[in-house]
């Protein structure tokens, strides 16, 4: 029936890794994800896992070691945040193009500069086109559950792509909350053993990994990567269904919260979705038909499914916890509106950049967005689709 516990998001991620017991973990500490390799290294020291823990000297080496391990035929994991992910940048692309199903725990934090250790999604958005599957998690439970599902998705023969599980730095990574854990044996059975089809240490099949790939083939290889990303959608749904059988916890590509009959809706990711649920409940008590669409699977992006789910609302606000600084809206806004356009869904939509550098997002902030949407429904007018939420007055001057 599961184990009732209370853990921080980082503890939850580390315990998921313990239960998965991967062959290799290579990591370098960086706030706010430091605790994940820290806790994991104690599991290694205590002999609770038989993982080879590689204490590397940088994140570039962490990802390189994971790539080497996966290419050799091992299951590899790592964790990082912000500038750690930036330093991995070169190897992030190599991991996905070599089709190595590495799993990374990304504890979201603002990328410098100036230096800021708090949460926003600028780290994740920087690698959104790098060919990694990206799952976002509202709380410790989802960070744990997504990690348990990660290898089954990434290692599937139709996918073979690396995967990152995102959660909000400090907000969930350092908050103790209730969680239901799955028993060790059940996790072991669910995750299964890694049996790669091709790997470097297979003496019966000598192969080269990552050689020169010029005009005649790179294009096709990229198209295959893109195809694998498309396939991931169904695999994620299938694995989530199996996970539901195991735990009773249901996961899709996104979560619809009171969206069925909603007239106004917010689209967002990670912990802000929890705050939005709280506000939706309060507004519903006042008779306001508010709803939420929480994106879980950001890559592959379920544009068609999201467009369909939003087709009956009258106004939408898409919240981005990272500013693309492009005068055309945040990444989630672009993806959602593009999905809507292509699928002939024409609902007024506005973008809010919020929570940058850990600026706290209060329930009042979320409520003000819903009030703005009511105004849009009433007047049918959108003066400016590119907005800020929680920015000090005149703060952009």
């Amino acid at each position, binding site marked *: 029936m599961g184990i009732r516990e209370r853990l921080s998001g980082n503890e939850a991620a580390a315990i998921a890794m313990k239960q998965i017991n991967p062959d290799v973990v290579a990591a370098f500490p960086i706030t706010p994800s430091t605790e994940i390799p820290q806790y994991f290294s104690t599991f290694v020291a205590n002999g609770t896992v038989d993982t080879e823990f590689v204490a590397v000297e940088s994140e570039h080496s962490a990802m390189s070691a994971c790539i080497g391990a996966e290419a050799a035929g091992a299951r590899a994991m790592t964790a990082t945040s912000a500038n750690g992910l930036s330093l991995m940048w070169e190897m992030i692309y190599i991991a996905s193009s070599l089709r190595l199903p590495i799993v990374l725990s990304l504890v979201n934090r603002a990328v410098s500069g100036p230096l800021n*250790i708090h949460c926003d999604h600028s780290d994740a958005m920087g690698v959104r086109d790098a060919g990694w599957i990206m799952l976002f998690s509202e*709380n410790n439970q989802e960070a744990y559950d997504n990690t348990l599902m990660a290898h089954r998705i990434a290692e599937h023969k139709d996918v073979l792509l690396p995967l990152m599980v995102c959660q909000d730095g*400090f907000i969930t990574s350092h*908050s103790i909350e209730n969680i239901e854990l799955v028993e060790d044996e059940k996790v072991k059975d669910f995750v299964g053993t890694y049996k790669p089809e091709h790997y470097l240490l297979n003496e019966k099949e000598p192969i080269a990994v990552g050689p020169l790939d010029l005009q005649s083939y790179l294009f096709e290889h990229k198209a295959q990567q893109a195809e694998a990303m498309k396939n991931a959608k169904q695999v994620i749904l299938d694995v989530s269904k199996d996970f539901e059988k195991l735990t009773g916890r249901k996961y899709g590509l996104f979560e619809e919260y009171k969206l069925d009959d909603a007239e106004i809706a917010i689209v967002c990711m990670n912990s802000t979705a929890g705050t939005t649920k709280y506000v939706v409940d309060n507004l519903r008590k006042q008779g306001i038909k508010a709803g939420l669409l929480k994106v879980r699977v950001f890559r592959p992006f379920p544009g068609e499914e999201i467009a369909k789910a939003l087709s009956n609302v009258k106004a939408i606000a898409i919240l981005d916890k990272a500013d693309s600084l492009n005068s055309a809206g945040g990444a989630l806004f672009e993806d959602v509106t593009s999905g809507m356009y292509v699928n002939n869904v024409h609902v007024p939509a506005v973008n809010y950049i919020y929570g940058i550098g850990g600026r706290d997002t209060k329930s009042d902030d979320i409520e003000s967005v819903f009030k703005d949407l009511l105004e849009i429904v009433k007047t049918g007018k959108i003066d400016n689709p590119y907005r800020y939420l929680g920015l000090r007055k005149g703060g952009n001057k």
Partner: protein
Amino acid sequence: MEDLIEIRWHGRGGQGAKTASLLLADAAFNTGKYIQGFPEYGPERMGAPITAYNRISSSPITIHSNIYEPDYVVVVDDTLLESVDVTSGLKETGAIVINTTKSADYLKSVLKGYKGNIYTIDARKISEATLGRYFPNTPMLAAIVKVSGIMSDEDLLEDMKGSFKHKFAKKPEVIEGNMKALEMALQEIKKI
């Protein structure tokens, strides 16, 4: 979340306000509640003002923001009273619990006319009597449990016995002192 209780802790780095908030979360968890315990991280250093938070409810808690309108405020260090707006947003139906020996008149004047209940406790005296050193967080934990009624005195003592055994596995000699600190705090807290 009808019965949601929100608590804000004010302390200084090194006094254990964060630990106390996590212990409170633990204790409430063990009585079957849904809990949140989280500090507000800043440039942490010994002596700098810090804030920590708790949410406690009998149903799942989804909100993920700091707490702006707490039911209760705990002040671990009374030197903060003049520099931090500790009653900011504090509900008048709630209460503030302060570790202090200062007079009621002084407290009323620095709390800017806060109309809710004001409780005081001399956590220094209790800590020094029971532990021989100044660790205000254990008495403050007992004080907020008493004031908020999150659980009975007995449940708290029973539960903390288990927690301390686990927490102080490597220095069992401090368990008894911490238990005594809890008991004494439950007795000594007073309303002004």
